[in-house]
């Protein structure tokens, strides 16, 4: 299955601009969804689809920066490219601090716009895969038995089987069996690989 096509969300209250941009992006074969307001976007969009947001800074009601704040709290974070008729410095600073990937001023040339969009899509793809890997690790971690999670914490803490057995009041052999099971469940070839993988899970090591 080919990776899903990135979708460009255009959020702008100005219909003619929205139309023009949509038209241009579709001409260069992007999938585009237009929204007349931030609230309409929040209500209707499926954030799971990859892509980015072209967001107008100034809109009646919920503005671009407000939408950015709302999206920050969400799991699926789409990269935001701000587009504004007149970008003043305080607003652009706020936008960049809030994680915007770009801050463009209308009228925007195609090259600049497409470069920003490509960049945003790339970031989105990277973040998405990172998010997917992490999610898989979490799933694997979820598959561990409570005893195995306990042993894992000791392993991450750099302890030998003997020490772990002593700590847990069990036989060294039992620990060896747990370790093998954990290695198997995470698909790790070595303890070093296991530790690297589990670092992303932020397991509290027991030393």
């Amino acid at each position, binding site marked *: 299955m080919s990776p899903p096509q990135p979708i460009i969300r255009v959020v702008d209250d*100005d219909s003619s601009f929205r139309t*023009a941009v949509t*038209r241009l992006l579709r001409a260069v074969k992007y999938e585009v969804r237009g929204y007349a307001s931030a609230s309409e976007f929040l209500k209707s969009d499926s954030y799971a689809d990859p892509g980015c947001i072209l967001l107008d800074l100034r809109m*009646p009601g919920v*503005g671009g920066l407000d939408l950015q704040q709302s999206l920050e709290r969400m799991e699926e974070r789409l990269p935001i490219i701000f587009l504004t*008729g*007149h970008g003043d410095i305080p607003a652009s600073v706020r936008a960049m601090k809030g994680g915007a990937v770009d801050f463009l001023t209308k009228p925007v040339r195609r090259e600049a*716009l497409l470069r920003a969009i490509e960049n945003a899509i790339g970031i989105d793809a990277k973040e998405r895969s990172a998010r997917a890997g992490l999610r898989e690790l979490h799933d694997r971690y979820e598959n561990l038995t409570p005893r195995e999670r306990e042993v894992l914490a000791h392993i991450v803490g750099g302890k030998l089987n003997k020490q772990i057995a002593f700590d847990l009041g069990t036989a060294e052999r039992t620990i060896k069996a747990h370790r093998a099971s954990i290695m198997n469940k995470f698909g790790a070839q070595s303890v070093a690989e296991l530790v690297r993988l589990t670092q992303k899970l932020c397991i509290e090591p027991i030393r």
Partner: protein
Amino acid sequence: MGHLYPCLVRRVGSWRVYALCAVVCLIITGGAHAADVERSKRVLTITTGSRLAPGFMLADRELLQALAKATTARIVTYAENLDLIRFPSEQYGQIFSEYLSAKYAVNPPDLVILLFVGNLEVPGKWLPKLFPNTPIIVAGITEEEFRPDQFGPFVRGIAQRLNPHANLELILRLQPEVRRVVVIGGTADIDRQILARARDAAQHFRDKIVIDFWEHLTMEELHRAVTALPRNTAILFAAMFRDGAGGAFVSSQVAHAIGQWANVPMYAMSDADIGSDAVGGSVASIAAYGKRAGELAGLVLTGTEVKSLPFETSSDTVPTFNWPALQRWGIPESRLPPGSVVRNKPTSIWAQYGLYIMAAIIIILSEGAIIADLLIERRRRHRVEAELGENQQLMELATSAGEIGLWARDLKSGTLWTNGPLRSMFAFRENDTVQLSDMIARIHPEDRPRVVAHVQHAQEHDLPFEGEFRIALADGTFRWVLAKGRTAHVSQNGDVRRLGVVLDTTERKRVELELQRQREELAHVARVSTIGELTTAVAHELNQPLGAILSNAEAAEIFLMTDPPDLEEVRQILADIRHDDQRAGEVIRRMRTLLRKQELTPRLIDSNEVVQEALKLLNIDASARKVTLQFERTPDLPLVWCDPVHFQQVVLNLVLNGMEAMAPLPEERRKIVVRTGYGDTGTVKIAVADSGPGIPPDSLSKLFEPFFTTKKEGMGMGLSIARTIVEAHGGQIWAENNAGAGATFYFTVPVRKEASA
């Protein structure tokens, strides 16, 4: 005064008599040798009493004149003065005798004349022994003193007889109110003799007045008595060489003392007694005695045996008075008998030159009166002239300084009078005769029909006229004037005139136009700054269509590159581009209208439309500021006479002001409602209501003042400009706090204000 007594007391010792005898002997011996020598006659005059006493000079002169008349012989005169009255000391008398003896030892006198002016008593005792065998003429002594038995054989002369009768008469003449006369005398023989004579005289006055004789009083008693005399009493001093206690005195000195002490006027019978304190008296004339002494001396010197001459007495008296005493007792000079001698009268300038002074004063006064009259007249004339001149000058000043043209036209005769400023205002020469038609001809052709009609209407209906119009000048320029006229009825002859003033208002017009220009300039600056505040909104508003245009154009390029080109899509794009271009153009036009610096002209506009236009500009800004901007329009409002740009500017200012006021509020409460509606008579009212914190009551009145601001970054000009604009359009602007939250700004614009002529 008590100290006076010792000095008055005289005790003449016998030594002096012997001394004088010795001197006399010496002189006689010396004189025998020179007897047969041909020589001039030497006459020695000795005056007793003060040499400066009144009358002495006169007596001297009379004496010398009489002497000169009597003989042609060469006469050498010597004068000595024996002031025994004031210097009664024994030593003085002694030294004086010795002095005479020594002085005249070589050249003894051929004749001695003794002239007495005081009561002395003494001289008779030593006189014959002074120059024995030398003829002596005695004059002035009283009859009683002049005792022939006392003088030697060579002594002759003339004595005075005191006249009590004449003195009593004199007292009654001078003081008719006097009821009592006190005659003061002494106990010496002479005193008694004189008193006896006074008693005789008193007999004649018994039925008129009471006459008392005080002759036995001591000096002390006398002193007390004369200080407490009843009114209507007078004193007549007789003589007093000895008082009641037997004390010896110089009579004239007693008279002097009594004159000072007495509380009533005192009169004296002897010249010597009058002194300076008695009112006066009828006394013997010293001058007369001097004259008689001179005559007698002449006789002796021309060979008449002195022994053959008689002892003469004279009772001739002269009324003699002391002017100060007359003044002291208030006795008018008018009562003095004719021929009176008044002594010690101050020879005042007035007394000496009274007539001249009076005449001079009269002349001065009359001249002064004339001068004063002339001055007053002159001043009055000057004042009137000054007032007239002043009025005229004020008028001239006012009319020329104010360049006020004046005219008056007689409606009957049609004659027109004009002043200089008016003629120059209408560009006539100073000497031109100006008719009404001439004036009308100079009015600017555009204004002429209106003015003529207006003037005629006012004149026909007897109404005041007022109008502003232009005067066309030869160089093609014109001058603005304000003319006012009214009818004046001249009461006397029933004439009716139109009077008027014309003011050159060119400068005022220029200032007005300048003010207008400045106001527009200010409004423009304010608009620019307002738009500066809107920059973000404006840029957004403009970039929106531009952004759309660019994207559309770029999309079109792509569509044209496809094979086959999507022409349908491109056509759609081009349509959109045109639309966006129009949008952008509209924004630019809206901006340019506000930014344009051009003469603004009012016209009839729909306030709803203009407010809508302003709100379009404001909408973007409002959204950026999270302000809900709401427009509540009242449909079908009458058109207002207003400059639309100015109108928008006011709305912009008020809305921006409201938005700024609400900045601290939570977003959901930021709301501005703009309403149009009907105002008071003939106006449309626009209200801009915010939901901010409202206006502090003490700021409500100051809101529209220039530079009044509560904002940190505000200039405080927005509302001030708004007021200037609104008032320039004949409207009003004000603010009120809302019943709930916030404040509402209102302004009115008049409906269909006609253009003024």
